[in-house]
């Protein structure tokens, strides 16, 4: 295992730049997740690390070794694909042994190492089967074993869970994470599923339009998003458009006057509110910001309720409140007081469009 460094990594096709100067440091044993909507450049970045896409600029290093110009087969990166990509004409054991054969590992050593890898992914006794005889989850574990058995310097996961059904996904997620920690694997995973990203990562990288928007922990991204894109993409937010009128003062387009923490420059801005920071009912009146509104929609989510509240003709917020068995569920049309502390307002200046 080793650290992985991307330095100013860029990829353009003609005038179209799909990855723009991405610089990242993945520490030895760290699990880094590249997160972003489709087309944000995360997959291209991963494929540059794997060696399938030649970068237009920048460099990639594993430890001190510059691998920018190396072909994929000389990089020693373990790769797991969304489609599993097992070799259909080989047994599970032959699939796992492939990388060892390529490395000219002695025959006597291959058997035990394959068995060990299959044991790690809890597939002992499956060696003689063919991929088509396995379930999707089992195939994905074979793919993982095949990538791990070569003791790669870095493990690269390309949307590894997207083809699994929801329940299995939760299981494999935890399994991969446990294995990664147990073996101390330096790992880069690409996903568009933020829940997956949040549960597995040590650190996350949010990308959009080929650029890195923010690098940080789960809490960094959620509580201190760097920009409006991150606030919108990670978790849910209600957006209120308006203007910063003075230190800590914001006026919405609908005329709502809010007190906000932090020092945003005066001018056009957007306030993002996380739904769980909002309070409904009598307690709301004591908070920094509170307003009267009308319930316009309620989603019943089981443990939680999403309550949409209309404050005036333009402004409308969503609050998420726990669904208490004793509490009354707000009904559409109810007049209600809603409030939130100044610290709940995430203020982002808006560039003049």
């Amino acid at each position, binding site marked *: 295992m080793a650290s992985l460094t991307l330095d100013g990594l860029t990829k353009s096709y003609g005038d179209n730049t799909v990855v723009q100067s991405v610089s990242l440091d993945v520490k030895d044993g760290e699990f880094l997740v590249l997160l972003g909507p489709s087309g944000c450049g995360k997959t291209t970045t991963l494929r540059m690390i*794997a*060696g*399938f896409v030649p970068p237009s600029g920048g460099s990639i290093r594993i430890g001190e070794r510059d691998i920018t110009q190396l*072909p*994929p*087969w*000389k*990089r*020693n*990166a*373990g*790769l797991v*694909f*969304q*489609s*599993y*990509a*097992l*070799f*259909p*004409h080989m047994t599970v054991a032959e699939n796992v042994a*492939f*990388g060892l054969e*390529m*490395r000219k590992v002695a025959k006597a050593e291959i058997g035990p190492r394959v068995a060990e890898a299959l044991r790690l992914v809890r597939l002992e006794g499956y060696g003689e089967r063919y991929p088509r005889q396995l379930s999707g989850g089992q195939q994905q574990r074979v*793919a993982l074993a*095949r*990538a791990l058995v*070569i003791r790669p310097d870095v493990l*690269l996961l390309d949307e590894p869970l997207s083809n699994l059904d929801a329940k299995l996904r939760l299981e494999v997620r935890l399994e991969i994470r446990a294995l990664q920690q147990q073996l101390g694997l330096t790992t880069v995973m690409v996903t568009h599923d933020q829940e997956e990203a949040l549960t597995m990562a040590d650190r996350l990288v949010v990308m959009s339009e080929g650029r890195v928007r923010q690098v940080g922990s789960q809490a960094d991204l959620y509580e201190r998003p760097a920009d409006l894109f991150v606030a919108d993409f990670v978790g849910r937010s209600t957006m209120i458009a308006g203007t910063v009128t003075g230190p800590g003062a914001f006026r919405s387009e609908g005329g709502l006057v809010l007190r906000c923490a932090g020092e945003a420059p005066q001018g056009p801005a957007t306030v993002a509110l996380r739904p769980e920071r909002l309070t409904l009912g009598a307690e709301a009146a004591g908070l920094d910001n509170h307003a009267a509104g009308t319930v316009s929609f309620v989603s019943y989510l089981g443990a939680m309720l999403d309550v949409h509240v209309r404050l005036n003709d333009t402004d409308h917020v969503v609050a998420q409140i726990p669904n208490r068995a004793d509490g009354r569920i707000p009904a559409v049309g109810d007049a209600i007081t809603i409030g939130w502390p100044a610290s709940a307002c995430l203020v982002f200046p808006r560039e003049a469009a």
Partner: protein
Amino acid sequence: MMADGRLAGRVALYGVAWATLGFILLPLIFVTWLAFFAQEIPSFPPEGYSLKWFGAITANRNFMTGFATSLQVAVAATVIGLLLAVPASLILARRQFLGSAALNQLLLLPLVVPGVVMGTSIYVFQIETEIATGLPLLGSLGGLVAGHTLLVIPWTVRLVTASLANLDRAAEEAAQSLGADQWTTFFRVTLPAIRPGVVAGALFGFVTSFGNLEMSLFLVGPGRITLPIAILQYLEWKIDPTVAAVSVIQILVIAVAMVITDRYVKLARVV
């Protein structure tokens, strides 16, 4: 009533299916039957049965050398056709470039162009090339093989391209990430995956070449003969069952090739 209607429909369907099958098999059955007739001029009912016509084949030099030449040409054309078609298919299936669609159609063209037209044009081409360069192309074995390679290519390209479409490219990338260079990846991952298409393409190419008459007529030189030409020439003078016996052997050769192929590749799954 309902049940009756359905039954009638089913009987009709089976009737048509069996009638069609019979129509297809009828020539095969009659040729095989005829090959064992005792009399020289075929007439029904047969006056008796005999194996002498199979013996007559071996006595006929044209049939023997024709068979050898046809086999030689078909094998050579199939091998060359595969060596050209597999790389061509890899590129056509994976790269979009200016004219790639046109090239794809071009490689399938020999299926569409009548054999006589192809034969004539290759013949003229060989004459012109020989005049221009002095190379002894016309009537050479090489020229014949080159022509037959054209017959093989559409089959191999079509079937290999089809099996490439089912191949997950990620499997090749996985192999490379595991340390296999391009060649190793091709031989260990790509080729095994497209093997059904390669084998089936080779078989159909072989059969097409082995049975080809129209093109060969233009391309065989003096003193060279293929099996279909030998059959044609024989029929010009005689109609005894020797020709039927030759056909039976030809059918057997092809049937054996198909059975062997089917052991390795389920033909029904590729075609």
